[in-house]
């Protein structure tokens, strides 16, 4: 079970959270003009990184808010969590 640092509530156990998939997936700016390839990228294609992965979590059984996290998928260790709208911390700012 993971211990996850909610940016608003602090460290809480994993069952309080819902995973929200890869972070920073941008919806096509003008949906009506997006090509099939752009829709495929938005809807289906994912980084699925082996290593540092930027992802969304929601503190469903807590404050209810979404936030983003950087996690190493080879160790499941969280490197950082940050609020929605913030840029992900650069690799130099997070320690493993």
């Amino acid at each position, binding site marked *: 079970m993971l211990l996850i640092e909610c940016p608003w509530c602090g460290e809480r156990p994993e069952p309080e959270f*819902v995973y929200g998939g890869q972070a920073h997936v941008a919806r096509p700016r003008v949906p009506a003009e997006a090509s099939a390839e752009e829709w495929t990228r938005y809807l289906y294609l994912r980084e699925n990184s082996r290593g540092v992965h930027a*992802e969304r979590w929601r503190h469903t059984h807590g404050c209810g808010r979404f936030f983003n996290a950087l996690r190493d*998928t080879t160790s499941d260790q969280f490197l950082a969590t940050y609020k929605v709208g913030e840029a992900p911390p650069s690799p130099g700012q997070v320690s493993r």
Partner: protein
Amino acid sequence: MQRFSGLWLLRRGLAGQRGWQPQWRHPDPKPAYDALIVGGGGHGLGTAYYLASEHRLTNIAVLEKGWIGSGNTGRNTTIIRSNYLFPESAALYDHAVRLWESLSQVLNYNVMFSQRGVLMLAHTVHDMQVAKRHVHANRAAGVDNEWLTPPEARAFCPLLNIGDIRYPVLGAALQRRGGTARHDAVAWGYARAADALGVDIIENCEVTGIRRNAQGAVEGVETTRGTIRAPRIGVAAAGNTSVVLKMAQVELPLESYPLQALVSEPVKPVFPCVVMSNTIHAYISQSDKGELVIGAGTDAYTSYTQRGGPHITSHALEAICELFPMFRRMRMLRCWGGIVDVTPDRSPIIGKTGVPGLYVNCGWGTGGFKATPGSAHVFAWTIARDEPHPLNAPFTLERFRDGNLIDEAAAAAVAH
């Protein structure tokens, strides 16, 4: 290859089990092959076997980063069934079941395929509607599946607690041709048979790069054991497929999740079939060694760690203890995780990639073991002929762009 028989096994027994030979060679990689298979699990080894036996491609190699069968082939709960909803899926998985039925004879290796029946429980009205829809769809597609009332389900699996639980059993779908097989034997049997046809099985050989020529076509791979050239490369790397195909700039609609399973201490034969419950989230069978083999769900997050959270396995055990109260005092012996590559529509991707000479067989998600022979058979065809077999033609990478999804998410609401 030494052909096995009952008489031969008896002689070995009388001779004190001396005289056994290694079942396959451990060759060093050659500089070049006609084709390479990346991934030495059941799907990859089976592909190599069918390439050699049915398509006369024998100058080929299987590259495995660990030892063969060390990934999901050695980590799954060995359940085999073909009761999928859509005709494309039912045809593909039933092709596999038909190959399973003769696999031990074809490979001359006992994969211990046991058609003991797979019982899928319904606990809610919605479950019943979905299960009956599956039963009717399967029967229309020529796949056996039948609906059992709760007493009938209990008669088929006498240990089942149908009434005294939070979500009583309201009925069950039974596929009698479903069952289990010995997972390691599948890898070993295919390896032995492929090796006998001249296929090189190269273990401890991790692919680190894919080489392409000026036209973009593949011409080989970089590995931890040197460069190996080949004009055709088939990737069957399960949870690590995204990582391998990124080496050729191919993006995939895959996410890799940990899926956990566990076994109990071994006991005498008590459990006659396979029971699965999507709603309360557990599945169980008993191995020939006597262990209860129990499957849990996936963890919530993507990961490559081959382990997951204990709350996931606890949840599965709570469900098992409700359905089978006599197992409440069983002790669990081991638990582990495998990394499963899940597609958005819960159906596999078997076909070309857009890079000439590069083929992919992935996205089996939580249910790849059951498909091993069928998947390998059609993937070998695809690599040998550079076009899909009719059975895997719908399972393209392009279906996500074109909207031709084969949405088996209902079948995979839990693991399968």
